[in-house]
Structures are given as C-alpha cells and as structure tokens.
C-alpha cells in the first residue's frame, strides 16, 4: 500500500487510528500495540501476500535468536555468526543472486541461467534493522523485549518499506511508554502537517519532475547534449530529494499520529558544505547504520590514516551495493567513497574554501554521482556525464534557430530534441525548487511554527491536502521502494 493512495488515506489510516485510539481510551495498551502490529502486517501484505510469511519468518527467527544470544554464556559469538549468516544469505539470495550470476556470465566464468526470484519489498530495510539489533544484543547494548514490541520495531508501517532505518534504542521504549497511548493534539497536528508536506513533495513535485527525468535517462539517446544532460541531472537530483525526503516526512508524520518519534532522515542535504557534511544530512539513518555496523567494526579510524581511508572507501562501496544489485550502484558507492577520501585529504591541507564554493563543489559532485545512480546502465551514465562536460556538444531546439542562428558560429547546433520535455515553465519551476533546497529551512523547522496563525495554517493545509487527494490517481511509487 502506498502512502499516496486513496486506500491508505481513506480506509487504512482512519481505521488503524480509530482502533488504536479507542484502545487507548479504554486503557487497553496491549491491544493498541497489537492493532499497530496487525495493521503493519496488513500494510505489508497488501502489496503481495506471498511476502508476508517471509517477513514473519524473519521476525520470528531473529526474535528467538536475539533471546538465545542474550541468555547464552558460552556460544554467543557462534549464535551471532549463525544470525548474520542466515540474514545475509537470505538477502543475498533474494536481492543479489541474479546480479552475481550475470556478473559471472559477463566475465565468461560461467554460463548460468537466472533464478526466478521476486524481490520482497523492503527486504534491505528489515534485514539490516534486525542485523543491527542482533549485533547490539551480542554487545549487550540492547535488551530483549516481547514479541509484539519486537515485531512493531521491525514492521511499524510508517518505516517498513523505505525507512528510516530504526534503531531499537530509539523505538522499543516508545512501544512501552504510557505517553504513547495518550492523546496529544500537538503530536497529532504536527503529524498531519508533516504528512501533508511529504505528500505535497511527492505528488506535486517529485512526480512532475519524473516526467522530465525519464526521457533523458530511459530513452537510450545516442548522445545527450550539454544542456539536456545538465537539465536531466538537476531534475533527478531534485526528484530524488523531494521523493525520498517526502517519504521520510510522511513516515515521521505518521509516527507522530501514533505518538511515536521516528528519527529524522534528512536535514537539508543540498546545503552541505562538504561530502562529509552531505552524509550527515542525507539518509541519516543509513549513514548512522553504515558507520556503526560497517565502518567501525572494520576498524574505523583506529589503525591509522590509510586504514581509515580504505575503510571509508569500502563502507561506501558496500553502501552502494545496499541500494541495489547493479554495477551503477557499485560505481555510485565507489564515487562517494572517493569523494570522502578526497574530502578527508583536503581537510589535512587546511586550505580554506568560501562557503559558496564549498557548497557548489559538493552539490556538483553529488549531482554527477546521482547520474550514475539513476542510469539504467553504465553506458547511459557515461553518455550523460560526457554530455555534462560538453563532449556531446550544445544543441538547442530547432524552433530557436531563427532567433539564435548566430550561435552556430560558437558551435551550437539546432535540432529537433525528440526526448526533451523541458519548457520555459519547467525551467522556472526547477529554479524555484533549487532555491527552496539551497536556502529555505526544511519541514522539521516549519512543523514547529503552529503557534503562529494555526487557523490560517490549518485552512492552507486543507486546501493543499484536497489538491493532493485530487491528484492521487496519477501518482507513482516512491523511488526508494526498490531498495
């Protein structure tokens, strides 16, 4: 079920909210928790009921294993090893086996046929959430809890499909806190506000940008010219941000409707002044996960500068693979690994950079990496990146030729741009969105502004909500659902 669907907004959400608060009103906290758990499982099964047993099996297995590790004295390491092996094997089989086979075939090391596997939705999110939990139980940083609380921690519907990746420390106590089961108009209002902001980002912005992005990346143009390549890259940079941060806003907002605080996942990432800063602002819960469960266990910065840079590089490559089974993701991760290494080395030089230059360089680097991330193949990525550095020439629409023909002296060509859907109004829209992402505060800031003019804000949000509802028929899935 999509957050941006009629079924979710008109049926699922009111029903779960109604039963949850009825249980709260009757002081039936266990039933309220159970409502949320069953609701979350239904939410997951609505996509494809075949995946539900897999999810339940994964939860039960990890719940039992966590208890075994917690109570075990002598075999803790072995049990942890078993847990990691089973979880990672399951993930590898579902998500990476065909990629592995295609790579072997490509390198002519084998001639294997592909396995027919349907990728369970959100598998990366729920697998890594549980791996982190097992590791923390092993290190005695986490307590075990009841099955309902644990099941909720893994499945609670606002985060289940596309994060934020939850940490048990942030969540388990909330499932048992009496505050969770009390009505809070503050949480409810802030929750709705964030939910509407997120919906608006997705439906009104990201989905419209998708129509501009798709032709550049998906139509397999032989050469993407300079302007089109940049417009495609900028549009995708904005689309991904508004899509994913829209999802995260909705997830946090939905959590607040149930008095639960999910971790913030975005903090104006395109305002970052370095790549290090970018990763503290973009998909924060994943960055924290990679730091705590990959980078630090690999040695972090404990074994000298070279080892630190190597660990950073490896962590980012693995982070790339986490996003998907494909070489574009590997190279995207590698790019960010290299950027981070360069960033750390640059810091050693102690050469000051103005804020504007630092932000621009960071944004350009991020944008170029997004081109690789979005491209269906490395050939397409190479084509667009070549276009961005001017190797495919500059081409303007043929209708501009009568007015700008003198530009041909400077190497500008005029041609029918079959796959370019950019119009003047799109350009203005993109400029506005760039300004919003670069200079305006984010939704977390605005959600604290209810004290000023609550009625006007309420009516404005209602109008936006009505507009969004009227547009739901043409919306699409969130980009991060595929990961």
């Amino acid at each position, binding site marked *: 079920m999509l957050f941006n669907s009629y079924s979710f907004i008109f049926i699922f959400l009111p029903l779960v909210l109604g039963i949850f608060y009825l249980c709260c009103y009757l002081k039936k906290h266990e039933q309220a928790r159970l409502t949320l758990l069953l609701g979350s499982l239904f939410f997951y099964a609505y996509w494809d009921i075949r995946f539900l047993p897999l999810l339940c099996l994964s939860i039960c297995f990890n719940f039992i294993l966590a208890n075994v590790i917690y109570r075990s004295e002598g075999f803790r390491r072995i049990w942890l090893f078993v847990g990691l092996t089973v979880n990672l094997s399951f993930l590898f089989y579902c998500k990476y086996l065909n990629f592995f086979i295609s790579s072997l075939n490509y390198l002519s090391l084998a001639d294997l046929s592909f396995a027919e596997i349907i990728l369970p939705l959100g598998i990366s999110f729920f697998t890594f959430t549980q791996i982190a939990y097992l590791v923390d139980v092993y290190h005695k940083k986490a307590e075990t809890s009841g099955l309902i609380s644990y099941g909720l921690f893994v499945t609670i519907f606002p985060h289940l499909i596309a994060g934020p990746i939850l940490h048990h420390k942030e969540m388990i106590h909330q499932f048992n806190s009496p505050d969770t089961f009390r009505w809070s108009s503050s949480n409810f209002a802030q929750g709705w506000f964030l939910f509407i902001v997120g919906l608006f980002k997705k439906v009104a912005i990201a989905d419209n940008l998708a129509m501009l992005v798709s032709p550049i990346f998906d139509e397999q143009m032989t050469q993407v010219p300079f302007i089109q390549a940049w417009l495609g890259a900028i549009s995708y940079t904005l689309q991904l941000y508004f899509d994913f941060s829209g999802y995260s806003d909705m997830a946090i907002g939905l959590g607040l409707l149930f008095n639960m605080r999910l971790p913030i996942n975005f903090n104006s990432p395109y305002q970052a002044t370095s790549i290090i800063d970018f990763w503290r602002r973009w998909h924060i819960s994943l960055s924290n996960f990679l730091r705590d469960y990959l980078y630090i266990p690999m040695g972090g910065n404990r074994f000298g500068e070279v080892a630190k840079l190597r660990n950073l590089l490896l962590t980012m490559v693995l982070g790339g693979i986490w996003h998907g089974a494909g070489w574009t993701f590997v190279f995207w991760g590698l790019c960010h690994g290299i950027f981070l290494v360069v960033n750390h080395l640059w810091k050693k030089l102690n050469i000051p950079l103005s804020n504007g230059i630092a932000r621009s360089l960071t944004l350009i680097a991020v944008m170029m990496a997004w081109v690789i991330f979005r491209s269906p193949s490395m050939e397409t990525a190479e084509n667009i990146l070549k276009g961005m550095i001017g190797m495919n020439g500059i081409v303007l629409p043929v209708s501009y030729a009568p007015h700008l023909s003198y530009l041909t002296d400077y190497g500008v060509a005029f041609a029918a741009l079959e796959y370019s859907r950019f119009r003047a109004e799109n350009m203005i829209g993109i400029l506005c969105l760039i300004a919003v992402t670069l200079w305006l505060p984010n939704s977390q800031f605005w959600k604290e502004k209810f004290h000023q003019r*609550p009625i006007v804000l309420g*009516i404005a949000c209602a109008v936006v909500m009505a507009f969004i509802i009227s*547009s739901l028929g043409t919306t699409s899935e969130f980009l991060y659902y595929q990961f």
Partner: protein
Amino acid sequence: MTNNHNPHSRFLLSFFLTVCAILVTIGSFNLLIDPYNIFETPTWHGINQKKKDTSGHFARLFQAAEIIKLKPQAILFGSSRVIRGFDPHDLEQLIQIPSHNGGMSGTNFEEIYGYFEHALYNQPKLKTVIIGLDFFAFDKRRKNSPDFSWNRLSISHTSHEEYFDALFGKLALKESLKVVYFNLTEKNNKWTIGFIPGDLPEFDEKYIANVKKEYGKWQVSLYRVELFRKLVEKCRECQIDLKVFISPAQTVYWDTIREIGMWPAFEQLKRDLSAIHPIWDFSGSNCITTKEAEKDGEPLYYECSHFRPYVGKLILNKMYGASDPYPTFGVLLE
C-alpha cells in the same frame, strides 16, 4: 478531548473542517454527474445523460468499467477509427447478440489484448470479437497510454481506488464539468458508449504531417505480434468468432505511408498477421478509399483517416457476407 485555546487543536479543527467541506463538495458533484459511468447514478436529460470523453483520456478506465457492467457477448476493439466508425446497433442487427464498441483512441495491440482478456473474464460466453487493426498498433515505439493499467483488467469489479478517483480526482471533476457542458450543448441524440458519431474537424494537412512523424520510425513489435497469435489461439480455444480487419482510410493516407518508405513494412506486417489468422484488408486503393463511392450520396469520411458509420456498416456486411454493393472494397488475406 480538544482545547479550543490550544493552537494545535485549532489547527486540527480548521484543517479537518475545511478538507471535509472541499471533499464533500467535489465528491457530491462527481457522484451526481458520474462522468465515467461507474456509480450508476440516475441520469437526467440535459445534465448527465451523455458521457462525453469515452474516447479521450479516460477511455481505458471507461471501457474497463463498461465491460464489467455490460458483459457484452460481442465486442469491437480498435482505435478511434472503430470508435467513430461502428455503431454497435449495426452489429447487433447482423448477429442478434448484445454488442459493445470497445474502441480506445490510439490504442496499441497490447492494450487490445488486455481488454480482450478483460471481456472474456467478465463474459465467459463471449461469442464474437471484431478487431480493427492499425499500423501503429504494432509500433514498438507506441507505448501504452498513461490511463492504461493492467490492474483494472481481468477483474469483475471496479477497484475502490478507481471509485475514489472518480469521486475526488481532479480529472474526474474536470470531466464532470465537461459532461454538464456537453449535455447542455450537444443536440445529437444518437449516442452510445464507446461509439461517438458527429463531425470531426477537417485537418488533413496536420493529420498527414503527424502520420509522417508517427510512422517515420515505425518498428514492428514482435511481442505484440505474439500477443495477436495468443489472442487468436484463445478465441479458437473458447470458440469465439474472431473477425479481424484493416481499416480503410483515404488514399492520401496510404500514399503518405508509401512516400515515407514504410509501405513494404506495412505489407510485411499484413503477411505476418494473416499467416496467423485471416484478415479482411480494406486498406490500399478501392472505391471507398478513393471516395469514388461517395457519388452514391452517402458521405464516407470525417477526414482522411476516420470513416463514418456508413462505411463501418459496409465493413460489417462484407465480413458477414450480408451484402456487397462494392465488390472491390475489402479483400480477405489468408
């Protein structure tokens, strides 16, 4: 439970009251007009009796719902040529079976196949299927229409997502307003769902320019040819009488295809398809495409591409052997 002095409560109150007011207003209007014909709201002459856009943006939604509702035993599939050119009553008179015009503007064969399966799912006793084929229906580059969705096919009910969209969607609202305007201004009483008679603007020049652009990069979709084979097999299996034809158009249309060098590809496609199932070919040069028959008094076309129901009736009569006033019109390719 709420404190009116609390800004959060005031926000919530104003938010919910406003959103409910807007949605109830839009929803009631759309429910009343029922622009896609899916609520079966009573019809009022001059207000919502004739639903306008059965061929435009919502044709696929409209047709999916109509097939569920009507469960026709005989159905015509094809593009706007079928929509404009075939009165289902003509077919009903010929074969004495309740018939439906399932045409959808600019449809490709993947969509036709989807709606064929949908029709069969909802009417297992489907007896007759007539398909008007177009060259573009097999073009690899012609994607499915944005309003086409496999999710609404081969099911026996309209999904609740569709119902909500028909109630609150902005396109539904726009369509409701159009329906009211259409009913207030349209005087043509001969109107049935799927079949839209009435004059089309004469825009031959633009149309021909579009044909050149459209067919210039035509590439056969083997997947869709395979779907055609699948459809034929399914019809044989279910003992459905399948008639397939290639629509007539004025000679200028065919000359344009020749001019851009796509005639051999068109001929090859006809050979490929007729090797799978016999096809009536009404294209090329004959007394209808040259408009020679117009001297008998009946206008034949709206413009160079879309023929009138009179020609549609001639096609049906020819395929069913009912009458044949123009022997050069239509050849059976086997």
